[in-house]
């Protein structure tokens, strides 16, 4: 019994810590101590408590603290978790407008829309995709097993139709999930978090300057070198920015 109590206490410790962090963050936010709120929310996220509401609140704390790039980053992260989070959509729009007014708006000329398959794999939330694939997988094989024991009749016809349906839809969702995971693993979507950063031709602060980028701009990180990220803009222009000026959407 003693060992069991110790085990329960050890298991409950992280939850208690996270609960404390969130409570601290909420108190600090209410007291308009936004830096303290940011620190507490970041601790909660680092402890694995980064659901969409926490990320949204973290975005709000950054917004209030005047760190617009980080605010946009966290709103985008919240929307990656739940694309229908209307508060995050709204605040993201406001943050982007404030950036455009105060810092400048980045217009990427010749930017291409994301390919259709990328838009398709991002159209459905990841949790829905995972659940759908598992349930359809289960349904498909359960129906296949049932088919072995129903040799003839109307019920068998129904089972055949159900099996084909579950198979086709399951494959579709499986393809979407595979595409989503491949994209997440191979394309490192990022956000410019610095208010303003100069893109350079080489990973060297003295190299030729390219366009200035502003907070909130979505870029793709390609590789790292000498404390710089090589990034690619929406129109396939590539350049280097200091590492701390850009953060990955999926750390």
């Amino acid at each position, binding site marked *: 019994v003693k060992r069991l109590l110790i085990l329960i206490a050890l298991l409950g410790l992280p939850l208690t810590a996270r609960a404390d962090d969130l409570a601290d963050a909420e108190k600090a936010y209410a007291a308009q101590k936004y830096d303290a709120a940011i620190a507490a929310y970041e601790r909660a996220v680092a402890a694995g408590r980064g659901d969409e509401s926490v990320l949204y609140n973290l975005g709000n704390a950054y917004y209030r603290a005047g760190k617009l790039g980080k605010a946009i980053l966290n709103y985008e992260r919240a929307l990656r978790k739940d694309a229908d989070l209307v508060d995050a959509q709204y*605040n993201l729009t406001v943050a982007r407008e404030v950036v455009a007014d105060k810092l400048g708006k980045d217009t990427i000329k010749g930017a291409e829309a994301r390919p259709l398959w990328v838009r398709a794999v991002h159209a459905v939330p990841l949790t829905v995709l995972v659940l759908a694939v598992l349930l359809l997988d289960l349904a498909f094989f359960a129906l296949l097993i049932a088919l072995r024991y129903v040799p003839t009749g109307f019920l068998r016809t129904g089972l055949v139709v159900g099996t084909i349906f579950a198979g086709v839809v399951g494959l579709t969702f499986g393809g979407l999930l595979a595409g989503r995971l491949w994209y997440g693993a191979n394309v490192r979507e990022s956000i410019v978090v610095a208010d303003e950063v100069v893109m350079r031709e080489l990973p060297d602060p003295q190299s030729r300057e390219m366009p200035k980028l502003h907070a909130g701009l979505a870029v793709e990180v390609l590789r790292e070198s000498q404390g710089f990220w090589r990034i690619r803009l929406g129109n396939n222009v590539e350049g280097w920015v200091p590492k701390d000026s850009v953060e990955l959407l999926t750390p």
Partner: protein
Amino acid sequence: VRRAAFLVPIATFALLLVAGVRAASAAPVDFTLTVTPQTGSLDDDFVATLQIAITGVNGAERVWEPDWGDFQVMDRRNQQSSQWSYDPQRGQEIRSVEMRRYLLKARRAGKLRIGEAKVRVNGKEYTTRPLVVEVLPSGQAPSGGTPDPTTPQYAPPDPSMATNTFLHVVVDKPRLRVGEQATVTWIAYTRAEILRYEPKLPRFDDFWVETIYEPQAYLQYGEDVVGGRTYKTAVLSRKALFPTRAGKVTVPPLRVDMQTTGNPFGAPLKLASKELTLEVEALPPGAPPGFDPGLVGQWTAEASIDRDNLPAGESLELTLTLRGEGAIRRSKVPRLSIPGFEVFAPLDFSEKVETSGDVIRGERKFAYVLSPQKGGTLPIGPLEISYFNSATGRYDSARTDLLSVKVVGDPGTLAGASADSEDNVITREIRPPHEIGTLAPRFFDDFHRSRLFLVALLAPGLAFLGVVFLDVVRERLHRETPRARLRRARGRARRRQKMAEVHIRGNRPRKFFDEMARMLSEHIEERIGQPVAALTRDQLGRLLDERGFPPELVQELIGELERCDFARFAPSAAGPGEMKSALRRAQDLLRAIEKVRPLAEDEVNA
């Protein structure tokens, strides 16, 4: 003062009445005599038209026909109509038009004179000028007609289609781009006089259409010579067509029901023009962002603001004027994005469109409301409106001049200032944070990364494979093979042996030997696949011989079975020792039976 005030509306009414009477009793504005054709031969019919157009409701008191001289009047017809029109100075007015048409035949060749016609309206007389008509001898065709001034230069009709009355359609530009203007004219050709006509305009599904000309009260005639014959021509309709899609686009035929002097009392002629096909080319790729496909032609833009200095929190009006040649009515409200301003697009616009020339031109004015977002001197423009220049064949932009406006104060600080002022200005705010009630970690957030996901994904498939495997095993177990029979026989023999051991322990010789006999018989049956219980010992011996059992084994088997029979009927002779040795012999026999591979029945028959 009160009496004067009472008199004002009476005086106004009286003035209006006088003006109305004056307008109603105005003099005739048009009294003309025309003859077509002005050059013809003795074979031709000539039509003289006397037109009396009078402003007001009164008609002519008396009309004197001209002296026709060497022309003989073959037919006379009158036509009267009224039309309403609007005069900017005199207001709405009615106009009566009387057309008198005379069908003439020349009596001789030469330059023949037609005298003046005269009319009396409201006691005043008006006369026309005398006319001279050139008449050629019979069989001589005139050299050519004078084109109608209302028609453009157009392709002449095909002489092969030149019946007495027909419709001709011409287009000024058979190859053009989407949105460019093509002017299409439908002309009636007739050698008689048109008494009445009723056009049925087609549907122009693939065009944006503007009407350039359609006759109002009466037709205006011209002349043309087709295949050596003089025709009177009258434009029935002229339209500017702007194609809305690329490819071969057809202009459907105009259909007209027409009554002429050639057939005044019969059924009207049903005429139709030819169908035109225009080759419409798509606009080239590379249209600038925000390009409005309605803006094809030649365009200029002009911008003006209603004030150039305003306090923070107020807005100004920007008027954008688009002017040029093209389908102005097809253009949309341009979307403007002006840095430093929130732009409210106009809900309406004013326009002036000139359709009387051969090219549609005009202007549209859009009034935008601009709300400054910051203080200081803010530039407006130069605004650029993209259009396709049909003259150069490229995309171009109409550019306005650079304007600037000075905004006094900072609109961004108005929210704080509102507490002190009467205006309640509410700025845009972000939405508040969410309450985070539950502490349960989100299981599915990273579930796809865990091994459990792989297990959950593979488990149904593995379960299915397991079911299939079990089915296969079960099926194989139930299949009737020599091995299966042997396995079954061994199982039974094992059970019989256990029972026999029980009978030994219980000292029940009859039951023991019964089990022994059954055990051996069943084992033989399983091996040869045939029942043997009903056979006599001799029959069994023969059967076993035939099926390839060694003779010694057969003898031993038969001997053992006979011992069992004997012991069953004389059980007192068998003690436990005898039963145990009988069991050992039976086990040896079972092993010997299993070693034999008995012949199948067909092998025996063969």
